[in-house]
């Protein structure tokens, strides 16, 4: 086994079925209202062995954090009790992802591939060769992955059997999004593409001019993405027709977040922006003291965003007013995660924080 088991720990209570669990961002399966509203208290903080790779994953009673070492740390999401740590020999590529019964991990090295592990036992179920560093998406028994060379593949989630394969014609730097019947992907050449989830047939393709750097965010009628130059674009999800564009002028966060008609994006110009999801107008902006690389998250009323200034911010979704902030021990690059009643974020100083209301 290329990623030899170093330490086996048992995970408990990972029962819920998810529609999409990747790096944070909008996912249709989660109830926005489930997130906590500020002011929050620090429930617990724990050291991890390396900087985070992706955001913390909340699953049942677990909080899971993959690190760049790479190791998978498991904590009790409520108490922070350390349940175990699983180490891997090969370098991890991209964030770990929970999908159904599986924990999926992209690995580099000579035998680069996507490893599907049983989320309860962490035993390998199957392995699919290739370099998969971007968040993937799953629907029912279908898992859709995208390789850096721009090849999208649908795999059967049970055994990794290929279902279909489609080539986008250019490289991809961002993860996928799933609609009801469609897979959405963006290329570094600036093409936003919709493929049929059933067979990978290309449905539409829209050239947006610059490389896409924010994972498409599917929200029913509309699909949102952002380019390397900081141009936020909304298109119709059924045709790719551009509805609006808004230029923010700086590299956006990989994940966008949407709630209450506000599209939230962070930028390397130190700002968090709230855009009107229907018109693209900037409704508010919030200045942090550092580059914003951490993808923000939203709850029913609140935006949670972190910055390389070492703060976790809670902003009012409607207005962008600062509601609450917490000084962490170092800059944050990994996405903020919102779970049922909790918010989690890991700093570059190797500390995982989980907040909530007692």
């Amino acid at each position, binding site marked *: 086994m290329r990623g030899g088991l170093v330490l086996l720990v048992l995970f408990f209570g990972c029962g819920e079925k998810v529609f999409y669990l990747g790096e944070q961002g909008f996912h249709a399966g989660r109830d926005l209202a489930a997130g906590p509203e500020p002011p929050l208290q620090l429930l617990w903080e724990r050291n991890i062995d*390396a*900087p985070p790779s992706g955001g913390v994953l909340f699953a049942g009673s677990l909080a899971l954090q993959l690190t*760049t*070492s790479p190791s998978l740390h498991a904590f009790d999401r409520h108490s922070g009790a350390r349940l175990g740590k699983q180490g891997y020999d090969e*370098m991890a*590529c991209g964030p770990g992802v929970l999908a159904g019964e599986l924990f999926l991990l992209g690995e*580099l090295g000579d035998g680069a591939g996507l490893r599907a592990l049983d989320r309860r036992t962490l035993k390998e179920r199957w392995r699919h060769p290739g*370099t998969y560093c971007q968040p993937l998406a799953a629907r029912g028994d279908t898992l859709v992955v995208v390789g*850096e*060379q721009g090849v999208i593949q649908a795999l059967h989630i049970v055994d990794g059997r290929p279902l279909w394969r489609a080539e986008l014609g250019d*490289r991809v*730097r961002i993860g996928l999004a799933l609609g009801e019947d469609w897979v959405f992907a963006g290329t*570094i050449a600036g093409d936003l593409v919709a493929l049929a989830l059933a067979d990978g047939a290309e449905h539409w393709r829209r050239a947006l001019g*610059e*490389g896409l*750097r924010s994972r498409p965010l599917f929200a029913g009628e509309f699909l949102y993405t952002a380019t*390397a*130059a900081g141009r936020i674009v909304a298109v119709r999800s059924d045709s790719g027709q551009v509805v609006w564009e808004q230029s923010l002028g*700086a*590299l956006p966060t990989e994940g966008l977040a949407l709630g209450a008609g506000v599209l939230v994006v962070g930028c*390397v*110009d*130190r700002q968090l922006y709230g855009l009107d999801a229907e018109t693209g107008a900037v409704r508010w902006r919030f200045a942090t003291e*550092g*580059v914003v*690389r951490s993808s923000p998250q939203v709850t029913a009323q609140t935006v949670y965003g972190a910055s*390389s*200034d070492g703060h976790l911010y809670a902003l009012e979704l409607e207005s962008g007013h600062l509601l609450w902030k917490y000084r962490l021990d170092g*800059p944050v*690059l990994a996405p903020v995660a919102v779970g049922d009643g909790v918010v989690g974020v890991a700093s*570059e100083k190797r500390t995982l924080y989980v907040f909530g209301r007692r």
Partner: protein
Amino acid sequence: MRSLLAIFYLAALATAAGAQFTSFGKNKVQYAEFEWQRMESEHFDVYFFAEEEQLAAYAAQMAERHFVDLEKKFAHTVQRRVPLVVYSSHIYFEQTNIIPNLLPEGVAGFTEYLKGRVAMPLSGSYPDFERVLHHELVHVFTFDRIARVLERHEILDFRPAPLWFTEGLAEYWSSEWASFGDMVIRDALFARRLVSIEQMLYINGTYQMYKEGESICHFMADRHGEDIFEQLFENWWRGETFEEIFALTTGEPIKTFDKAWQYYLSKHYLPDIAQSDPPSELAKARTETGFNIKPEIARGDSNAFYHFRNDQGYTQIVRSSLDGGEAEIVVEGERLPIFESLHPLSTRLAVSPDGKSLAFSAKSRGRDHLYIWDIETKRQMRDLSFEEVVAIESPSFAPNGMRLSFSGSDQGGLTDIYLVDLQDGCLESISHDLYHDRQPDWSPDGQRIVFSSDRWAGGRRGYYNLFLYDLASEQILALSQGEHNDAQPRWSFGGEHIVFSSDRDTMYNIYAVRLERGPEGERAGTRRLTRVLTGAFDPVLSEDGERLFFSGFQSGGFQIYELEVALADSAEERWQAVEVARAEPWSLLEGFHGESQLARRPYERKMSLDIAQSQISQDPEFGTSGGIQVALSDVLGNDQYYFVLSHISGSRTGFFDGLNLALSRLHLGQQLNISWGVFRLNDRFSSRFGRFVREKRTGGHIGLSYPFSRHDRIETRLSLRRSEIDRQFEGRRLSGWLANNFISYTHDSSIWVPTGPLEGKRYSVGMGQTVDFKTSRRFNITLFGDYRHYFRLSPRSAYALRVMGRRSTGDVPEFFSIGGSWTLRGYPWRSIWGSKMVLINQELRFPLVDRLLVGFPFGNMDFGRFRGALFLDAGNAWNDDFGEWRGAFGVGVRLALGGVFVFRLDGARRTDFHSVDGDTRWDFFFGWDF
């Protein structure tokens, strides 16, 4: 391990560190002493001295502006505070102790990675200062971004980016692609000198590498998107080489990209040949070898011109004849110790109106001087320096020959046009402001001075136009206008025209402007004189106005060309009105917070770590040895501490017996360098040519070194110690309280190639003595001398001579040894020894193979710069009876691998000068030639 500890001790016991205290080497002289202060901005600590407070405030504001810009480009924040040390003049900058290296004039700034310091001078132009600052900050971000990405993925070995990429990216992100980039790339293409990415090592560190790197980064962004660089840095942990990282980021092998880039350049630039020509096709080349620049014509001398020449590694001023005769050296230039630099790239020469004397500026003793030189006798007539002027450029005689104008920079870095009266030395400036006024030229009627300056609105963006200073009205008039660079204006001898170099039509070409007064006032008509493909500079017209001399760039260098011109013909001219220039077209801190918001603090000498390293090794004689070395210094590098702790655990020593401890402090912030230290050592010691002696020593030392100039210094040291000495080689044990002192004088004006010196000389003479000050017993007196002279035979060959001798007398004389590759070849390493020593080396050094490409199954290996040597050595070391001379002769080969790593292989046959030994003995060594 012996050598390792020896290095430790040398560092710890050094009377001072850096090149100035090695046995030879040129000196970095602290001519000026500054009261340093610190200015704090959000991310920067700006270090400055009182005279340059305005510059410091500007630097802080610009640094913050570019910090925000680079945060976006790198998608990264540098979390640490960045030390930024600014100097108001390159002359001051060259005295920095932040790095020990001597800084050439071409270095516009540097980023040092131990403490992450940025150091840079003001060259006269504030916009250019800002560009260089931006460039250096790209380095700060590049280094930090890579370091953080590797740290994030727990990769301990730093994977540096190739130099062409770091410099190319810094150029790309700090400035627009400009005429000089076009010039270098076009020339490289047309001269078939373009270097592929794979071969970039061959031009490492050159201007061509910078411009090729910048061009590659432009192409990279065009081909893969502007965010390609951010992606490359993000992926830095995923590959071990840049090629690997590039391929996995772009999906394209770098070889494919390289070919595409070269094809793009060909397609973009090659059509230009239809419209323009290389200088050699357009005009007659008047110089051919080396580097020739800045032609100057003397009135009444139609058969020759003066210019700077560098074909031997230093700059001279020569008079070249137009009839093809041998060029005559008028000023030996940088070969003479008094001239540290003639600034050939930034300043011009001036011939007096009577054609008898030359005026030029040269750096000497910590500031620029204005020299008046008798052409006939080739001797100095005047040496002018001014308290308020640090840097001097481009002198120009008034028509009566009694006054000179020049461009001068004061202690704060403000650069203005100055006028000096040669009779009374009276100095005045025509302005005193932040604009970069340069390259003045006095009109033949004596009423006006034309000069190039950024004193107009576009000057804030780095563009220079031409201006006229009217001496009667004291008004400054704008002669040209536009977003381009007009430079090096020169009046014709008759005063009808001004010729100048300009990049107004993309490339630098020569233009002529004539002034005309009409009903609507004065106007200037400009026409183009050359269509050079690469670049034409430094124009000057012949006395009859029918020939133009200029410096042309071709095949990577500059030569002087002559072109016939017809200024009286009816070529089309573009007319512009000559108007009074705006008094204050731009200011430094527009759009910024007041500089008063920047906190100022006195400079605090806070020490921080430079190096901390440890080593453990085995020695068959002395057992296990382990040691740590720690070096600390302040931000400016003026104060340095060295701490050494090591231990030798041998069977004959207890723990404390084997303990070695030394602490030294060096103070380099003034012309007199001071060092002191304390030590407790137990090890084997040897002088450079001495015998190893085992000694336990406990004591202290103090040393002084005073450099008079870059080439000469005197130094002395006194040490007091309690010693227990075991001179195993003569079976003698001694102990006592020893006082040792020496004094020496050292000169070094040698000029080097990668394998060693090729021209000039260096010598060191001195004496020292050791006494037991408790018993007043004199141990020894030692005299030493070492003289080396390098006679250049051709540009790349030389005859080298070394004569050295040492003599030690007294109860306990020092012993010296010779033998081996570095002293007497053909004899075993240090095999001949005695209290007296003499050595004579003669060596003929010549080029052998410039490049050797060897094919291996795994790929080609490219070796460059093989040099050959023929040598004859003679010497001996003795005690009472000299015996006979020992000699050797033979051949050698050297291969420069970089820095001190010069591979040397010598085959020698011994001789006693009566007969020759039949065996050839081979010496192998790494190190420079003597």
